[in-house]
């Protein structure tokens, strides 16, 4: 059992890192710990628990800006902005249930450190695109700030982008500032039944290339479709979401349905079912229960039109579905100890993109790469970037790659 340090403020975090530096200790940075099992197994001496740094410190809805301490529960922030008719438009997914945990437990710091997003990624961007400012402690034990509270800002390097998706390996965040956006008045979905993966890819390209402003495009193959919410289907479903003001949604769902009719039978989901469907797509629901909960899980990002090519290259016993117009593929592999890394990484390398083994037993994560392996030039650059923030390897060392 490793000791846990639980700072109360940014100064405590600075002290903790300085202590670790002087004592040659490595720290595991955690918020609520919902994504603790993602990455290479921890090789740390102490846990730095940031869940005590809580509270929204600034929220000005008309300025579209919110600041909070990094350990603030994401659910608290989402509830607050919802009360003001707003949302975090990057639609952060909830990893908790994929690891058998409860829903809605993550922190805002965790959401940013892992650059979360959801189906709306294709329209609104990921956490990185909404992350305006940060205060954080580097592995040198120094508090730095970057960005600000305004959206339009090119003053100095955009460290927020680098920190988003760095999984706590560069800095321990203490305070963050985010862009909030108006929440859509309503939404609806258009669903085509019975397409195979290749045909679905074409339908998604057609919808995304229309002026219907689609904010979700997913293909749920027949073997998993029934495990999503909001639909009553036995076969494959290719789903499209439109969100916005009521008259606009009414218009766009009809336009989209007419556009997609040549691909197959089309149905429309009302607001309530649409919300349920996209929540379950966001959280990869088919892989959160039953036998599928034990399957190694891949998250793959490729060019949207090429995503479907991967299906024919992997075990037919794999379960999978597509989000982001075909560009994001969730793949649950059949053998608990055998994630099929060789095959998947080879297929993704040929297409251009990246694959992360988000869920696997610790032994598997210790034995092979979890994050996408980098070619030698990029690996060396990543190492230099890591060293520029954390030269002694105090912060989450080895979590993303060995030596980083």
């Amino acid at each position: 059992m490793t000791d846990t340090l639980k700072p109360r403020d940014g100064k405590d975090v600075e002290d903790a890192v300085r202590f670790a530096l002087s004592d040659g200790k490595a720290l595991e940075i955690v918020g609520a710990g919902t994504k603790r099992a993602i990455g290479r197994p921890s090789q740390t001496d102490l846990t730095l628990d940031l869940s005590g740094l809580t509270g929204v410190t600034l929220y000005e809805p008309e300025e579209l800006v919110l600041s909070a301490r990094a350990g603030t529960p994401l659910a608290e922030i989402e509830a607050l902005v919802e009360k003001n008719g707003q949302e975090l438009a990057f639609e952060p997914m909830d990893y908790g249930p994929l690891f058998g945990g409860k829903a809605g437990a993550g922190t805002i710091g965790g959401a940013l450190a892992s650059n979360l997003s959801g189906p709306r990624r294709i329209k609104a961007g990921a956490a990185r695109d909404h992350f305006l400012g940060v205060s954080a402690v580097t592995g040198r034990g120094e508090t730095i700030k970057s960005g600000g509270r305004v959206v339009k800002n090119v003053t100095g390097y955009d460290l927020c982008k680098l920190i988003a998706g760095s999984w706590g390996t560069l800095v321990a965040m203490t305070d963050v500032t985010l862009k909030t956006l108006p929440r859509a008045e309503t939404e609806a979905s258009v669903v085509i039944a019975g397409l195979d993966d290749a045909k679905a890819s074409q339908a998604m390209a057609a919808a995304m290339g229309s002026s219907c402003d689609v904010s979700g495009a997913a293909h749920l193959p027949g073997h998993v479709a029934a495990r999503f919410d909001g639909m009553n289907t036995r076969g494959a479903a290719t789903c499209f979401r439109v969100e916005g003001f009521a008259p606009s949604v009414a218009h766009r769902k009809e336009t989209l349905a007419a556009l997609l009719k040549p691909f197959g039978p089309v149905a429309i989901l009302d607001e309530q079912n649409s919300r349920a469907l996209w929540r379950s797509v966001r959280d990869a629901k088919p892989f959160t229960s039953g036998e599928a909960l034990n399957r190694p899980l891949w998250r793959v990002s490729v060019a949207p039109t090429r995503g479907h090519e991967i299906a024919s290259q992997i075990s037919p016993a794999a379960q999978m579905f597509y989000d982001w117009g075909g560009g994001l593929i969730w793949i649950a592999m059949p053998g608990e100890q055998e994630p099929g890394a060789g095959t998947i990484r080879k297929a993704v390398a040929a297409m251009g993109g990246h694959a992360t083994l988000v869920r696997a037993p610790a032994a598997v994560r210790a034995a092979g790469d979890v994050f996408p392996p980098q070619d030698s030039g990029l690996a060396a650059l990543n190492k230099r970037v890591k060293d520029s923030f954390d030269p002694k390897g105090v912060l989450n060392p080895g979590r993303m790659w060995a030596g980083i």
Partner: protein
Amino acid sequence: MSVQMPALDRAVLGRREQIVAALRRIVPGEGVIAGEREMRPFESDGLTAYKQLPMVVVLPETTAQVSQILAYCHAEGIRVVPRGAGTSLSGGALPLADGVLLGMAKFNRIKDIDFDNRVAVVEPGVTNLAVSNAVAHAGFYYAPDPSSQIACTIGGNVAENSGGVHCLKYGMTTNNVLGCEMVLITGEIIRLGGKHLDAGGYDLLGIVTGSEGLLGVVTEVTVRLLKKPETARAVLVGFPSSEDAGECVGKIIGDGIIPGGMEMMDKPAIHAVEEFVHAGYPLDVEALLIVELDGPQAEVDHLIERVEKIARGCRASVVRVSKTEEERLLFWAGRKAAFPAVGRISPDYYCMDGTIPRAKLPLVLKRTRELSEKYGLRVANVFHAGDGNLHPLILYDANKPGELERTEQFGADILRLCVEVGGVLTGEHGVGVEKRDLMPVMFSEIDLDQQQRLKCAFDDKGLLNPGKVFPKLHRCAELGRIHISGGKLPFPDIPRF
């Protein structure tokens, strides 16, 4: 000029002939320019108050040549200043007397247009507008639209993280690029991103975007294409005070509406513009707002009514909704001509670029007027109201002794004011040399040192575009040292579990 550049490297200058010869071996023919007269067009960028002839200009055509040039300069310890179209308003491409000016203008091909994946792969010397033009036939466009879009290049847009009038809704460059090929100062060629979304590891593309040519030289960019909105309509609203206009902007956003564009002008800007283009702007108002809604017809018609109602509720004295496309373009004609219009009423003008929290606008305008009196210089304000990006245009005459210096002091005071009210030094023009010495107003020494450490990860000898962005240059070895203070105490203050 008042900005101090890095001390001249006389050893490098002494080897100028050998360096020119070596560059000619890499880029044969017309690609190396070493004559004073021929180099003259490169002596400044859009910030024309700053001028400096480079040691030599090189215009490569291939990534392999860029790689060889940089590897050579790295080995020889020669400074390099990358340049796109040279439209920077912050002196980002200002040459160094002892440096190679690396012009990327010959990288002007569009390599791939992929409508199914909604991306284009272009070389960095392609102009911003050329990308949109190349995909317009299929109803697509590239969203960031800086006002220099006819001339500025995608490579420069990546370097500066350029914005435009539509960024509130569609984002800046950083939200619209998916990948790049880049050459490091060592000559190493790396690829970041591609046609897929997000980075699998560190988001280096996010750092390179807006790095002002200090981290590497981009040789290819993959940009996102968007489908053109079905339609667009604009509302022109005049207010008796800037407070009312500011309130209106807040209420529109508070009502859940994110307009495609939302621009404000103050009285001096309105008058300058109206005299120039006769857009039919009301002259008896203190502030003018243009709100543009774009999207499906049904949505635009619905929202325009809501915006009209909000505007009337904010004491607007004039509200005009565009009825035709011609009328919409006329509303914009004035705003788009704002800079040249101000240029007509003054021998010279100096364009500032701070961003502020929108609610602070009336305060900032009031204090700017006070500063205007203090310095005895007129100022007109143009404002990207949706995202708080303020462009005060200071009117001056460079031929009057001391007036440029006064203008720069006035500008610096405005930017300090932006930071004081919670804003930033630059919203879209970049730091460059222009705002370099103001960086400590916004950042501590620790912040700036950390940013420079990140630069060291890309450029260990500090050869890429030195003298820009950072007011004080440190050696990488010096920055790498760790000073552990505090140390051994197991901080009993921290609760342990």
